[in-house]
């Protein structure tokens, strides 16, 4: 019985791999060769693949391919591709549009609810379905789940939600600040920057939530 581990270790260069990972790969490939050598249905192909030509040429390619496949930093992982990148692009586009509209039309629509006045960035809100669609479509193309797509699509609104949550917790912890703060304004601002953007992002997000991933 050949020493399969020695054969694999001698033939396959895996210098760029950590010792523990290398040993594991060698054990696994050696086990595969051992099984193939004992399995009559694959004996012909096994003999082909352990011929001197194969050993001298293709083992090197295999070693390189395995190192590439194992290298984590080579490509973005799935979570980055399906969630963080689409969400960040969505946030960046939404923030850029907000700045542009603030420059070209610095007069938000004032809505009065009871005695509270809300400055609603109406032009920005009207463009948010495009941002929502962009984030969700990118997450969809990266095979993100429906939840991941929804998060990527609503990302700008979720950032504002996080900001208001932090502010709310701060107010709750520091009674002096909380005591003097006009809470109605706080909740109305949350409505303007969290709820309304979420409602505007949703029309762009919903069509891609159940769509099969492509690309």
């Amino acid at each position, binding site marked *: 019985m050949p020493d399969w581990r020695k054969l694999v270790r001698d033939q396959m260069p895996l210098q760029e791999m950590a010792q523990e990972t290398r040993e*594991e*790969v060698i*054990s*696994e*490939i050696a*086990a*595969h*060769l*051992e*099984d*193939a050598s004992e*399995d009559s*249905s*694959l004996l012909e*192909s096994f003999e082909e*693949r352990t011929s001197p030509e194969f050993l001298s040429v*293709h083992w090197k*390619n*295999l070693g390189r*391919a*395995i190192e*590439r*496949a*194992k290298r*984590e930093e080579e490509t973005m*992982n*799935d*979570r980055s591709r399906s969630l963080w990148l689409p969400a960040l692009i969505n946030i960046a586009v939404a923030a850029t549009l907000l700045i542009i509209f603030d420059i070209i039309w610095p007069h938000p629509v004032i809505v009065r609810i009871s005695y509270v006045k809300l400055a609603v960035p109406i032009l920005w809100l009207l463009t948010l379905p495009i941002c929502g669609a962009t984030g969700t479509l990118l997450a969809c193309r990266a*095979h993100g*789940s429906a939840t991941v797509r929804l998060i990527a699509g609503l990302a700008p609104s979720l950032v504002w939600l996080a900001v208001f949550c932090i502010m709310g917790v701060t107010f709750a912890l520091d009674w002096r600040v909380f005591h003097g703060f006009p809470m109605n304004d706080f909740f109305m601002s949350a409505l303007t920057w969290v709820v309304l953007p979420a409602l505007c992002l949703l029309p762009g997000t919903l069509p891609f939530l159940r769509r*099969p*991933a*492509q690309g």
Partner: protein
Amino acid sequence: MNKRIDSKITRGSAELAILSLLAEQPLYGFEIAKQIDERSAGALRFTLASLYPLLYEMERRGWVEGYWQANHTGRDRRYYHLTSAGRRRLTPLRQEWHAFFQALDRIAGVSHA
């Protein structure tokens, strides 16, 4: 007639084949290669060079997870099982291939060949 399928097609279908097999039960590398060979009547055949880089890449992507366990002969083998991320990947992949075959059938009538 040579019934072995062109390598470009087999390469594209490898991901689907592996994920589908692992959706049924955990398997180790040799079993995966053997089952694909048997179920496709030899039309799809994995070599060491095609199987393990793909398995490791799928593991890095979080679609499958490897663990060492003794097989029926008592030898330690590295089994792979499908993760929830792998199941999520499998569903659209099946749909894509289904749509691909349907489209090809409409063009070339491959189901009648």
